[in-house]
Structure formats: C-alpha cells, structure tokens
C-alpha cells in the first residue's frame, strides 16, 4: 500500500473546472479538482451524490453531456492535455487506453444486440481486428470475467443475463482492448450485496492480471476499504482530503471525512449512527469559503470567508481544512470515530492484513 512517489503519474488532473448549463443557471459541478493516478494503483474517489466525482471522470473520458463543458484546468495523459481534446482525439483514447465500467449494468447494454456482438463490436470497429480473432478474444474475455458456457452466452441477449452477469460483461467490454486506465463509476451500486463482493473481487483480479490502473468512484466507504490504494474525498466539486487508504481511514484530518467515516454503519458501533446534518450546497451558488462549513460542527470563522488551501500532512496526505493551520485550535476527531478507528486497527492486527 505504498504510494508510488518515485514514479511519474500516468494521469494527472490539474485544477479541473467543469460547469453545466442548466435550466436554472450555471451549475458549478467541479471547482478545481487535482489528482494523480499512478500505474497499477487503485485510486478511489469518494463522495456523496452530486459531489462531482462522476463528472470528473466523465471529463477525463470526454463524455460530458452536451450541456457540460470544461472551463479550466488540465488533464495530462502521455504528455498531452486532454482538456483540449476534440471528440476525434478522444476517439483514439476511449476504449483503447481508458475504459469505463458503468453504474447500472441493466441499461448499459443494448437490449436488442447479442452479447457477443457487443463485445466484438469495439474490437472490430475501433481496433480493426479481424472477425474471427475478435470472436476468439471475446470468448476469452467472457471466460476471464467468469461467464460459464461462454459459447452459449455469446449468442444470447442482455435480457437473458442477470444483473451481476451483465456487469461482468460490461467489465469484459471495458477490458477488451487492454486499457491502461479503467474507470469504475459506482460499479456495484445497482447490484445485490452478495453480487457486489463478487464484482469487486473480479475487478481486483483483473487488475492484478493486467496491471491496469483503476479509478474507482463510490459513495460507499465500506467498498473503498477493500479496493483502494489511495483515496480522494470529494465534497461540493472539490477534493477535501487525499491520502493513502491507511491515512484516510486511520488519520483522517478533514471534518467531512470524519463525518463520512462516522456515518458508515458497522457491526460494533453501539451508539446511534451519525448522520451529517443539513443538505449539500446548491451548486449554482456554492457557498463562499469551505462548502462544508455550514454543516460542520467544527467550522472556524475563517471557513465561512475563505476557501482553505491544502495542508500537507505527509508526503501523500493532504487536507483542505483550516483546522490544519498551525494557529488553529487543536480539535480532536469525534469520540465515536476514535473508538471506531481503534477497533479497525485491532481487527486489522488480528487478521494480519
């Protein structure tokens, strides 16, 4: 779980700004997001609905909806700034270098096209693979993602597949061209809990096989714990804290991360589960200063006036909170969370993770 500090990142996003034209005004969905993705790692982006995590990755893939646009920042990939890419440039990236796994496998597959054809399609059209070869590759992929009787399944339609099976197919399609980066946009949210674990295992397994880098988007801290090397916590279009999984789970520094971790259900917590008060801000008129301040018990006066910069807590750990300022009052994380972290550490030592 060591960060790859000495390596060059393969993807580097710098101060990305994405806005949407909406019925009621301009929605500032992403307001200056920066992160790096290193080869072979899994970077999780965590946040509640509307925090901008999906939009960030859509911008990376060049699939923003028509009313959305990149209004600032850079996306560096192989020495080129994808923020300036045209649709044509993205064509050489999507499905070849960067792939996407969707949230809802039920709607991600074309209902009236055979499964096999949907896997082969990209291989034939975009990688110019001969048909026979594409078929062999498709079958191989289907077996790799754990579809039994691949030859039979190849000729079937999506409605003959279960949700988990469909998600496996979507993963197979995403991996068809050996991409460098796999973006998983809440890949387990729409699935049954029992299937979730299988899909997560599959992603980990595929990652181990092909050394693909994964950007894993989720709102579920529980899922993150099993998957991520590093974690970005997003709130209201900004990353509020970034660090290795250990750092985020054991030494969280931003009050929002505290709140997120406290609200995560687990078996041992005896107290009432913590709920974050208030509602997420309106992104047409985001609040000045720290967007989380109005909902934050630990808010400082300055939080309401000026957006905090990132405070470096370790080589890999940054948090955007004035609480980290040397002159700020020292605030301890909530008691409930302290206990919980203690338990998590004990459990980890016991299992020798």
């Amino acid at each position: 779980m060591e960060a790859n500090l000495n390596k060059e990142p393969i993807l580097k996003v710098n101060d990305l700004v994405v806005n949407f034209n909406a019925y009621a005004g301009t929605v500032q969905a992403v307001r200056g997001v920066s992160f790096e993705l290193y080869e072979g790692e899994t970077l999780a982006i965590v946040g509640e609905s509307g925090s901008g995590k999906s939009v960030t990755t859509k911008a990376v893939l060049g699939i923003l909806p028509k009313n959305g646009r990149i209004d600032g920042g850079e996306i560096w990939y192989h020495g080129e700034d994808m923020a300036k890419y045209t649709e044509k440039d993205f064509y050489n990236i999507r499905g070849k270098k960067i792939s996407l796994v969707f949230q809802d496998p039920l709607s991600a597959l074309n209902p009236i096209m055979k499964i096999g054809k949907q896997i082969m399609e990209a291989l034939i059209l975009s990688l110019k693979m001969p048909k026979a070869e594409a078929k062999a590759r498709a079958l191989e992929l289907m077996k790799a993602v754990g579809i039994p009787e691949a030859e039979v399944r190849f000729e079937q339609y999506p409605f003959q597949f279960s949700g988990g099976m469909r998600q496996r197919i979507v993963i197979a399609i995403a991996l068809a061209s050996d991409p460098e980066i796999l973006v998983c946009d809440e890949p387990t949210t729409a699935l049954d809990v029992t299937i979730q674990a299988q899909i997560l295992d599959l992603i980990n397994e595929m990652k181990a096989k092909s050394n693909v880098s994964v950007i894993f988007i989720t709102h579920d801290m529980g899922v993150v714990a099993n998957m991520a090397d590093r974690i970005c916590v997003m709130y209201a279009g900004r990353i509020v804290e970034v660090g290795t999984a250990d750092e985020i789970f054991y030494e969280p520094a931003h009050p929002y991360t505290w709140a997120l971790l406290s609200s995560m259900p687990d078996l041992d917590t005896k107290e009432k589960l913590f709920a974050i008060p208030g509602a997420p801000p309106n992104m047409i008129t985001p609040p000045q200063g720290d967007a989380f301040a109005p909902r934050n018990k630990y808010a400082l006066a300055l939080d309401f006036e000026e957006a905090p910069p990132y405070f470096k807590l370790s080589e890999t750990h940054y948090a955007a909170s004035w609480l980290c300022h040397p002159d700020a009052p020292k605030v301890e994380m909530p008691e409930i969370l302290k206990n919980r972290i203690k338990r998590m550490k004990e459990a980890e030592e016991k299992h020798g993770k």
Partner: protein
Amino acid sequence: MLKYIGERLLAMFITLAIILTLVFCMIRMMPGGIYDELEDITQEQLDALYAKHNLDKPILVQFGIFIKNVVTDWDWGYSLKLQPNQTVWGILGDKIPITIYENIFSLMISIPLGIGFGILAAIKKNTWIDHVISVMVVICISVPSFVFASLLQYFIGFKLGLFPIVYEPGSTGFAMFYSMTLPIVALALNPIATITRYLRAELAETINSDFMLLARTKGLTEAQATVRHGIRNSILPILSTLVALFTNIMSGSLVIESIFSIPGMGGLMIKSINAIDYNVTQATLVFYSLISLGSILLCDLLYGVVDPRVRVGGKKE
C-alpha cells in the same frame, strides 16, 4: 414464437367474428326499408326482391346464409341497388387494387422520409434544422389530409398544371402512378410528420441512454454509435405505430378518393352508404376491418422477428 403467432391469430379471428356479426346485424337493423323510394312497385315484386336477397328471413338465418356463402363459395351476395344484379365481389374486385396501391405507395414514401427527417431532427436537436422540421411536423400533423388535398389539387394540379387534378380511369403503370401523385402526397404528409416526430423523440432519448455512452467509451465514434445502437434501437418502437398510421391512411383515403375521383373502395363505400346498399356496405366495412386486422397481425409478427425480447422470450417487455 409459435405460441406467440398462434395467440395473435386466435385474437384476430375472434375480433373478426365480432366485427362480422356487428356489421351484419347493425346494417340490417338500420331504420328505413331499402326499397322505400321505389314507388311504382307492386307488393309481389317487392316480396320477390326480398326473397331473392333473403331479406324476408330472420336476421340470424340471413347471417348464417351469408357466412356459409362467403366461406364455401366466396360469395358476398349481389349488390342491391348500386349496380343491381352484379355480384358484390365483382364490384369490389376492380376497386380493391386501386385503393391498395394508393395506400401502399403513401406508406412507402412516408416511412423512409419520416425516418430520414426524424434522424436529422434528433441529431441536430435544438438547431435551426430541428426547429424547421418541428414546425413542419406540427403543421403536417394538424392540418387534415383533405385540406392538403384541396391545396394540392388547386395549386399544383389546377394552377400550375403539373399533375392531373383527377385520377385518369383505366390508366396503368406509370400513367396510373402519375395521375395518383397528388392524392398519394396528400395522404403521405401526415404519416411522414408522425414518424418524424416519433423517431425524433425516440432517438433523442436513445442517444442519451447508457448503452450509447458505453458504445462510445468502448471506442466507437459518435457516428458509429448513433447508427449501430441509436437508430436501430429507435426504429424498433416505430413498428408499433405503423398500424395506427396505416389505418389512418386508409380512412384518410376514403375522403381523398372522392376528392380526386379515384374509383376505389372509399368512393364505393360513400356511394353504398348513401344508396343504402346493405351488401356492398357490409363488404366494404369488412374489407377495411380485414386490412386493419391484417396490418396489426403483420406488425406483431414483424415485432417478433426484429425484437429478440419477443422472439426469444415470447413476450413484449
């Protein structure tokens, strides 16, 4: 699939039976005798006429005879007043092909045009092209086909003299098509607009669907994704509107035929209604029912062929 076809066929026959009974009985229970205006006719002659056409028997017996004749000999009886002593089938036989041509031609030009405009409007959504198409669609859907027929007949036919203002009887081949141009166009405008509107809506929705996004993220260009996933998937639901469209064209052709003096089923039906010719009226009504039921059946079967959810699963989702 076989079970599906069987179900459809059975449903069609039940409906047809109901329609036949209804048509037969209601026409015969109409107020007013059919020979009322024949004044210098003796009671014996009248009785003879009634007996000849079985009109003196109870209605159910008449119905039985009618069904038996149709099923065994394809005998639809004689025209009572329109062209007395001619068989109904003989009168219909000449007129059916004309009506069918006219309707099929209209449908054949409206499907490709409607699909073309629909795709164009959806791809260029919210541009001026889309707006122009949308305005045309509202006009063509709203303005009745017989108003278009009058416009075309007066301006294109009469003032400009580009096409004949009425159908030329007895013409064949290209000449027939040529003299039918205006009625066909008048009939096609509404279906074109209907298909355009429907396809635009379908395609605009499909373009925003997840599987279109997946097609793009797996490496297809926007054009490839639109053609292979968007258009194919949005044309499918259009099939179900084709039945309604065809029935629309058929009923529209009733009026259009009389405007352009086309000797088809429409004119015949109007004449037979006004002349109170039971046998002809009922045959024309049965003809329209058959056409409409037939197109429903055809459409259901087509659905089965093109939609795997029906073909494999045996049901519409």
